[in-house]
């Protein structure tokens, strides 16, 4: 009885694991095959990886899209961490009733669907374009600004700050550090894992963002990786091998970030729900 239960447990988990991993394997294998072999359902690695890559480089501006995505995601992540950690720290360390009220109002923004924001935001950046073209439609700034601050990340930092030993702050004050000095020189180095988890969450969502860039980035020169993959995928005579290599390349950064910092990521998720 107990033995058959164990067996079904392993069977179920194995099936779940295979189903989860299979599309990845297929995508990687397909990136080494010719288009016709991909449609035929070939599951063995082929010898067309370089061919597919060359075709991708010839028909698209891959490097440019990668650079655009990297610039946007890295800038967003750095700014987001700075802004949200300052706020999370501020809300937790300097508490007052009015600040708690403001914090609760900020949390309400998590309930606002992006669908309700996209049209006003698009019009807002349209108006900005008339005055400051460098930060209006079709610029990196227009992608970054609306996504750089999320109530979730502030909440995440505030929750983690609850665990921070407050005696360290007092020690800093006695040593004559300014409040910002305490934040930068005591809080920031102590909270490294929180920053790492926050960085993973933000980098992933920024790298993978699709709808807002689709609306606001309009020229080929500003295209990001998801936009590139989406246009490749919607062609009439798709070259499957070539598209698969594009998808693999587009997935490498987030997969790397995830695997290098998996521990912090899980720890971060735990911290956020406690």
């Amino acid at each position, binding site marked *: 009885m107990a033995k058959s239960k164990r067996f079904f447990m392993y069977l179920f988990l194995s099936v779940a694991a295979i189903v989860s991993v299979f599309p990845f394997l297929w995508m990687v294998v397909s990136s080494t095959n010719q288009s016709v072999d991909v449609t035929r359902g070939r599951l063995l690695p082929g010898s067309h990886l370089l061919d597919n890559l060359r075709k991708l480089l010839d028909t698209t501006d891959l490097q440019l899209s990668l650079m655009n995505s990297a610039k946007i995601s890295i800038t967003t992540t750095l700014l987001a961490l700075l*802004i949200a950690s300052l706020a999370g720290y501020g809300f937790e360390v300097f508490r007052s009733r009015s600040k708690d009220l403001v914090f609760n109002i900020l949390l309400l923004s998590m309930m606002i669907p992006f669908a309700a924001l996209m049209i006003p935001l698009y019009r807002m950046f349209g108006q900005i374009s008339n005055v400051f073209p460098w930060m209006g439609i079709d610029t990196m700034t227009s992608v970054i600004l609306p996504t750089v601050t999320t109530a979730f990340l502030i909440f995440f930092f505030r929750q983690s700050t609850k665990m921070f030993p407050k005696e360290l702050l007092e020690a800093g004050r006695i040593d004559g550090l300014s409040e910002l000095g305490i934040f930068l020189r005591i809080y920031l180095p102590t909270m490294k894992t929180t920053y790492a988890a926050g960085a993973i969450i933000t980098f992933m969502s920024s790298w993978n963002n699709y709808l807002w860039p689709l609306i606001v980035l309009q020229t080929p020169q500003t295209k990001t990786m998801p936009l590139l993959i989406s246009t490749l995928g919607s062609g009439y005579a798709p070259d499957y091998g070539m598209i698969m290599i594009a998808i693999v390349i587009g997935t490498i950064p987030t997969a790397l970030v995830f695997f290098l910092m998996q521990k912090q990521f899980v720890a971060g998720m735990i911290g956020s729900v406690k």
Partner: protein
Amino acid sequence: MKKTNSTFSIRTKSVLTGWSFVLLAVILIFVFYFYPMLQALILSFQTGTGSNLTFTGIDNYTRLLSDKTFIVSVKNTFIYLLIQVPLMIILALFISVLLNDSKLKFKGLFRTAIFLPCVTSLVAYSVVFKYLFAGNGLVNTMLLKLQLISAPIEWITDPFWAKITIIIAITWRWTGYNMIFYLSALQNIDHSIYEAAKIDGASASRQFFGITVPLLKPIILFTSITSTIGTLQLFDEVMNITKGGPGNATQTISQYIYNLSFKYSADFGYAATVSYSIVIMIALLSVIQFKVAGDKNG
């Protein structure tokens, strides 16, 4: 007198420092969330194309009720919601309970494998799924070879199967994500509770419904609300797997808003009205979910 003055100023200083830490975030959230939200509300009472807008009162809202495309989009979105969210939550709960077993081997391997889909971008995995489920795609080829079906299933081009494909895709992408929340919550449960239940002779299912589910209720509520909000805004997958087709069979509300604003004649006013329908649905469903969870609390 002097003493009170100085303590007062120290407190004022501390309050001001506190505000200066949170100020930037507060401004950005007001400018990029609450202000546009208000703008959308104003827009929803206006009509016109591009920037030539005039106030028309509740015309947009009456149009909404007789708009067939809107009604189909709402229906589709709710089909996804009602099937996919419970399915995914039960699946994630089940997997996380299995993974939490202390005697289980290869725990890390299973966890990483099941969480792996979360590293893909919605667009990338959608394109992969589109090819996997194509008429002559791998899924059909495999099902045919295993003789489970006698003719290829029209996954993408049949209105019914296209919805199923979308549901399979979202479930694949998000189950591992929800699982991580349950897993971390399960690790916080004191093991001795289960030991005591075992001594009392409680069966595995009894332990699951009597201990695990009640203790995980706050997290289940959290994940069901975030999944609901996510599904009501579904866009990337449908856009990249079926483009909303065949006909409007898989179109979601978000996609309809996108089409109204950026594909058809830029009807920003009406699109804003449609977007407010999502705001209202999210608010209503969240209240219901809180209520349901609260009632069971007794």
